């Protein structure tokens, strides 16, 4: 344990998290795209001067948190700390140095107290567009996917370099939104820097290092203690998931020993010529997220809380592809790291693991509104949440990422699309002693009067969300255009009046369905979450009368 005053530590630690929350607040309120403001496709992180992440905002995409420290390290290799000046802003969207695909821009500002560099603030958001093929899985090389910014000095001494702005503006479909969001990132990291300085002044802190040491040490201690509770050993799992042209295999071997977890993904399929490859930074981030959910969900996220977790994968494999492999839809495969890890550790932690979730469907829509304005937005639709021991899965809840659905009234206003219906799907929740969460069925019609490009970025159409500890699978996802099934990672043009129907997957069940409480089944029947036929077939429940 650290020598930091235990009472001051708690107070100052919480304050740093509040600063990260404030950064998110400023970001959401100044951004121009639905990705940020409705869907919270973002993260904000505070670092000490050594580049160690010490606090993260509560509403963040888990993967971004895991990638941010590595991104900062890359940035500091390109622009060493002693070359940075107050008012400098560094940015990149490189998939391998950032978050795994081009759409996320990582924006960092060094924080100076007088002439001393005392820390860094970073924010990451999913831009509304980055040119190229648009947000889709169809590219064969990263070059087709859009504008790739190396690590750049976006602003120097508080002056934004207009060359970069012009370059980006020229390369994207919705320049106002994209530049607006980029600048929102600059604004919010600035807000964060100001708050960090106020905090240091208030407590008379000259150097964050001792506080950071204590935060990281206690976080690391907590997760190591939890990892030590897992019986030492080797835990393996392999799952088949759909790819682009052919199914893929994801395999993992987790060694738990001496308070550490080493996950190796050897045995997974090779990278593919479709934009579903998962750079190792993202693979590692999702591994950390999965293990944290199982062990220390209440420990705030920082570098210490993931230090004992390691992830490796063979170079050139789907979970560690090399340039120029395309990565735009890396989350489609990357999100399966969570259920892969849960499945591996089910034997050791049966009361904590979660059955597979239906996960997200992202439909990227590009076109024009009825009034003629440009549209480039993502429709997020959630499947059901996987069941846990003692807890039915929630309906239509995103996992493992946390993008938020857009309200129907907002979406129609924004895009000119007509949402015909959005209903729960009975029987889509995997049967179990604890039932998986229900998926949903959504019907969208292109009512904008203009052609509309839709790129789907989803899985779960060939392999259903599996149950766990004896639970059964949830329903699968299906996507159809004008009644014809289409590829879940395809890119299509909707003519005016065309419709797209999606069926979102349910969550897997937990435990033997025959052990489900009778009154829980009766309540499901009453609500229509389960049909009488399914109650009989899956639960052996005979309806009286």
């Amino acid at each position, binding site marked *: 344990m650290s020598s930091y005053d*235990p*009472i001051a*530590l*708690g*107070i100052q*630690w*919480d*304050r740093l998290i*509040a600063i990260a929350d*404030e950064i998110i607040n*400023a970001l959401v*309120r100044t*951004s*121009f795209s639905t990705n*940020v*403001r409705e869907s*919270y496709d973002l993260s904000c992180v505070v670092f000490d001067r050594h580049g160690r992440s010490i606090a993260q905002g*509560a*509403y*963040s995409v*888990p993967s971004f948190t895991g990638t941010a420290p590595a991104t900062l390290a890359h940035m500091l290799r390109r622009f060493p700390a002693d070359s940075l000046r107050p008012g400098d802003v560094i940015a990149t969207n490189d998939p391998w140095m950032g978050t795994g695909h081009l759409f996320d821009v990582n924006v960092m500002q060094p924080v100076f107290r007088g002439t001393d560099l005392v820390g860094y603030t970073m924010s990451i958001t999913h831009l509304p567009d980055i040119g190229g093929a648009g947000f889709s899985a169809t590219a064969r090389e990263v070059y087709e996917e859009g504008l790739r910014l190396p690590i750049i000095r976006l602003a120097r001494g508080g002056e934004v370099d207009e060359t970069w702005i012009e370059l980006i503006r020229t390369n994207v479909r919705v320049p106002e939104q994209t530049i*607006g969001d980029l600048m929102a990132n600059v*604004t919010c990291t600035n807000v964060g820097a100001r708050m960090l300085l106020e905090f240091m002044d208030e407590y008379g802190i000259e150097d964050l290092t001792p506080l950071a040491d204590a935060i990281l040490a*206690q976080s690391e*201690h907590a997760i190591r203690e939890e990892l030590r509770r897992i019986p030492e050993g080797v835990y393996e799992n392999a799952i088949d998931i759909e790819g682009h042209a052919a199914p893929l295999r994801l395999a993992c071997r987790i060694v738990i020993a001496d308070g550490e977890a080493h996950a190796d993904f050897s045995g997974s399929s090779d990278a593919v010529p479709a934009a579903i490859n998962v750079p190792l930074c993202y693979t590692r981030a999702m591994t950390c*997220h999965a293990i944290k*959910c199982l062990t220390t*969900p*209440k*420990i*705030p*996220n920082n570098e210490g809380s993931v230090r004992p977790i390691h992830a490796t994968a063979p170079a050139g494999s789907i979970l560690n592809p090399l340039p120029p492999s395309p990565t735009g839809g890396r989350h489609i495969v990357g999100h399966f790291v969570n259920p892969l890890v849960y499945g591996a550790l089910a034997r050791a932690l049966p009361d904590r693991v*979660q059955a597979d979730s239906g996960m997200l469907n992202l439909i990227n829509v590009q076109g024009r509104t009825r009034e003629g304005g440009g549209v480039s937005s993502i429709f*997020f*639709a959630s499947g059901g949440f996987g069941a*846990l021991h003692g*807890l039915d899965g*929630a*309906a*239509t809840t*995103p996992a493992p990422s*946390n993008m*938020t*659905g857009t*309200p*129907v*009234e*907002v979406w*129609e*206003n924004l895009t000119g699309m007509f949402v*015909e*219906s*959005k*209903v*729960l799907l009975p029987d889509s929740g995997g049967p179990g002693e604890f039932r998986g969460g*229900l998926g*949903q069925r959504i019907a969208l019609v292109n009512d904008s009067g203009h052609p509309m490009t839709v790129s789907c970025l989803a899985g779960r159409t060939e392999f259903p969300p599996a149950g766990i500890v004896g639970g059964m699978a949830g329903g699968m996802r299906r996507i159809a255009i004008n009644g014809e099934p289409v590829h879940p990672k395809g890119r299509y043009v909707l003519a005016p009046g065309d419709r797209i129907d999606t069926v979102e997957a349910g969550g897997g069940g937990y435990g033997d369905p025959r052990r489900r409480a009778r009154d829980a089944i009766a309540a499901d029947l009453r*609500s*229509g*979450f389960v049909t009488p036929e399914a109650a009989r077939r899956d639960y052996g429940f005979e309806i009286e009368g």
Partner: protein
Amino acid sequence: MTAHQRYRIGVDIGGTFTDFALFDDATGEIMTHKRLTTPDDPSQAVVEGVRTLAAETGIAIAEVATLVHGTTLVTNALIERRGAPTAMLVTAGFRDTLDIGLERRYDLFDLRIRFPAPLVPRHLRFEVGERIAYDGTIRATPDFTALEAPLETAVETDGIESVAICFLHSYLDPRHERAAAAWLAERFPRLKVSVSSEIFPFMREFERWTTTCMNAFVQPVVDRYVARLEAGLATLGFAGNFLIMTSSGGTLTGDLARRFPVRLLESGPAAGALMSARHGRSLGLDQVLSFDMGGTTAKGCIVRDGAPLKRYELEVGRVHDFKRGSGLPAKIPVLDMIEIGAGGGSLADVDARGVLQVGPRSAGAVPGPACYGQGGTRATLTDANLTLGYLDASSFLGGRMPLDAAAARAAIADGVGGVLGVSVERAAWGIHEVINEDVARAFRVHASERGVDYRRCSMIAFGGSGPLHAARVARKLRIPRVICPTGAGVMSAFGLLSSPVGFELVRSRRIGLARLDAAALRTEFEMLGAEAERFLAEAGIAAADVARRYRLDMRYEGQGYEIEVPVEGPLDDTLAARLPAAFSSEYAKIFGVAFPDKPVEIVNWKVDASGPEPGRDRDYRLKSAAGAGHARKTVRSAYFPETRGFVDCPVYDRYALRPGDAITGPALVEERESTTVVCPGDAMHVDDRLNLVLDLAVTR
């Protein structure tokens, strides 16, 4: 007020006590009364209390002009799900919107998150084949005949008493919802009806519909309650105006309260904030931070230029670890209060990180803090304040409740000191200080989100625990002055009597400023204002006495969040030209920058219509027996970090202090419901209204 109706009564029903305040508008005197709340039928305590208060003060009930009432009935009915069986009529294809929810996890790492069940069960939601598009085009006109049979069944087998009507885009065009309401009134005249375009015509269906369902769910309960109360008061001979406080600090007539019961959420705390606003005005303070801290929660509210800030959302009944996002969202005008799970009963322990954590869980009234000696063994904030010497074992609650100091020390040693390896005193100080920091942090975020520089505020502190922590919290916020008003225990009841009759309307209608001419703008405002005025007319307020305040929610086109822009100046032809600058200036206040070239749009239109504020220019004084005995009643040992530990600290009797008395800290000032801590070096004086005014020493 007619000549023979010189009294007004405020009644605030809290969880434990029902507080009464009687104002004599002829003399400016205030009399108070306090009795136990009757949870099974809260109207009982109200009627009994009014009778007692009248008898004790020797007034005739017929002389009471107005009775204003604040209640937690609606909040409790929603939290405990004790509303009436309710059905919902909903646009075809969207019956499941309440179950589908926001499709968002409120915690990234906690897999065991739970969401609140919808108030209307799925089998009582009935679809109507109607549709209005986002631009107002009618895509399908409703036909209700098919609803007849299922609704009859719902009435017979489920006993539904209330219906929520919730159609898409009804904020834009309410005709289909109104047609449904008219049809229900004809075919099912006994059912109560709540219409989403009337309850709160705001874009975003999940929140609007959830709010409408809340209204429907509590409507029959509130209806019966108000009827009982009015009947009870009538039997006492009450013939004045009966008004109920809303969450936004205005009052409604009984009839309007029955139509919009969801607007009564959190009406008690709102009254406390209103009282702070009133104190702030009478003291000439332009920015006030109202700080109310009781047994389980602390509440803060910023008062600017004499009026508390407002907002339009509230979360009710959190179901998972008090976490934001785990409750039902209500979209209603509310005083913009921040609530923190920090109060005397807050439990202290060492969290998963190995650091001290206090709250948000509370020991409640039962078992209560360890020092209550009612079976509680876990350390609470009250235990810490007792151990630090701020509270006294024998004078707590005016001596009515002896405290067990040894039990407090033992609980702190077990739960905190031993685990962290620090002394009991150090641990107690830690508990006290963690709460100060939590409250300060929450206020800081709250203020900066609203573009308010908290350092320029004065703090008005009340509630059982507020004056114990006020100076420390203020110091962290660099607030130089703290005021602890007299009668802090019945602030809410006072506040009720300061609030005007008011009604606020909000309508979503998105339109770019470039497409809006001066005439259209004026028409829109006039329509909204006239509608709000009609509600006030029902309460007997003449149009000439109504003040209208207009505000717009505006944003740059393409942004998803709006900021509120007050509409100042005349509603004339220059308004359209003034709006862009007004927006830019508000935007820059909050975010530090503005983009004058970007197109701006209006999203929501708001009007707040209110009648005259009762007794606005009058100074009221608590009628109390003149203080007997010495102000300085004893000395006890209390802990201050500035003195590096315990020091002999003088203790004063608040009731014996007189205007002009001045004290330099360290000192403690005791009254029945609370104790004010004056930190070392801070200067306290008593002003001519008997408020305690603390001027904080510049420290560190």
